[in-house]
């Protein structure tokens, strides 16, 4: 079982902020390798895009561990929600042997909420 906990359980960040917290795992055996990725990915009608902005390797020496992490966030791209595309930021914790993955989504936006793209006159037809 993997887990990611951000400081103060914060999930909303502004451009240039620092996202920090603790990554933990509780597995049957010590993983050969543990990595934490800071990345964004798209969802929607198009084929997905993703981009790893930063990553760090967490030293794994036991089957149950907790490690601190800290990333400085870039100023873009913002999290946003549109009709065809939405963009989501996430922290992804990956262990190797055993292979496990855990994601913690968060928002990167200069406002308290993510951008919602909207046009004033929505259509009813496809």
């Amino acid at each position, binding site marked *: 079982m993997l887990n990611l906990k951000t400081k103060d359980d914060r999930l909303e960040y502004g*451009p240039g*902020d620092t996202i920090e917290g603790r990554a933990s795992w509780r597995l049957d055996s010590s993983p050969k390798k543990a990595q934490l990725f800071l990345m964004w990915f798209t969802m929607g009608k*198009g*084929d*997905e895009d993703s981009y790893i902005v930063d990553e760090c390797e967490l030293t794994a020496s036991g089957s149950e561990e907790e490690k601190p992490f800290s990333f400085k966030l870039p100023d873009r*791209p*913002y999290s946003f929600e549109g009709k065809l595309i939405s963009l989501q930021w996430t922290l992804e914790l990956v262990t190797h042997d055993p292979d496990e993955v855990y994601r913690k989504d968060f928002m990167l936006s200069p406002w308290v909420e993510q951008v919602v*793209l909207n*046009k004033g006159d929505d259509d009813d037809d496809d």
Partner: protein
Amino acid sequence: MAIQSKAIKNKSVGGRGCMFIFGGIFVAAGLGVFWAASIAPLMQLIDARSWDETPCVVEESYVETHSGDDGNTYSAYIRYSYAYGNGDYEGDQYNFTDVSTGSRKRHQAIVDIYSAGSTAVCYVNPDAPEESVLKRNLTPGYFFGFMGLLFVGAGCLVILFGVFQGSSSNAKSASARRRDPIQTDSSTGRVTLEPESGPIGRFIGITIFALIWNGITGAVCFGILSDGGVEVMAYIFMTPFVLVGVLLIGGVFYNFLGMFNPRVRLSVDRGAARMGSDIELEWSIVGSSNRIKSFRIKLEGHEQARYTRGTNTYTDEHIFTTIDLLNTSERREIANGRVTVTIPEYTMHSFDGGNNKIIWEFSVHGEINRWPDVGNTFEYEILPLDHSENR
């Protein structure tokens, strides 16, 4: 606004090479038809002008039937004998361009004129008396081969299109490899924006199609008309093809005229701008702005999503924001002007993830009476807020 979906058919591997081969085949075939059906017979006809007029006797004449997959065709076979110099010769050449066609009636008329046993006049090559011909007058049949020039023109345009497309796609591929998913920072200094597309490509495309369509339709119609007395059904069948051909010719002219439209030039006081900031947009019309009756400039934000399934690639687009900047019929305002544009603050900056993009564009449209409208789009980079001032 409806989501617009453009299906971009996959080009098979070596697409450019195929265009060159395809275009080359058209050029070769067109030149071949032009030579064989017109040039070579015309050269023979010119040569035959100096041949000697000689009396001859028709020995045999009948309509020959040639069986084909699409039905029978017919030709007139006339064998005649003549004396020239110290020798007796035989010939069977009616003219230099007669070919078998679907009309038996036409060839029967020729056979009736040159019936067996009748006397006639032939023209003999003095340098090679075994060569002779019955008719040496210029007829429309000698110009059939000019249809081949349509295919030559089409083939050349296909080759040119392949050259043009190859260089532009190479440029795009190179820039895509160099570019990160994130846009660069704003620059200073006035910038003239580049339009997304030009009228030349549209003109080339429709011209290629029109040449091929009208080349084939023209050849078929020529064959029908030269036969004379053909069934009404043949004319009825060909009518829609001819009508389409006429429409295509109209389309060629329409797009040709479009190439001479006034051009819109847009410039901005900087190459990219941050959300929430003001920019100064300037426009001017290059060419006769008096022809433009109404003129509109908008700033639009687009979502663009690309997906691939099977061997097809589709790009869907949705406009999420439209900001009207100018909508005027005033002549002076149309000719040139300047407007301050406030980039929305609460929106999404320009973004390129590869398959998914947020694109901002200035869209211009000018109406011209009884003439193709002026229209184009100009991409513009919108940057994120200056984050140090927020939160």
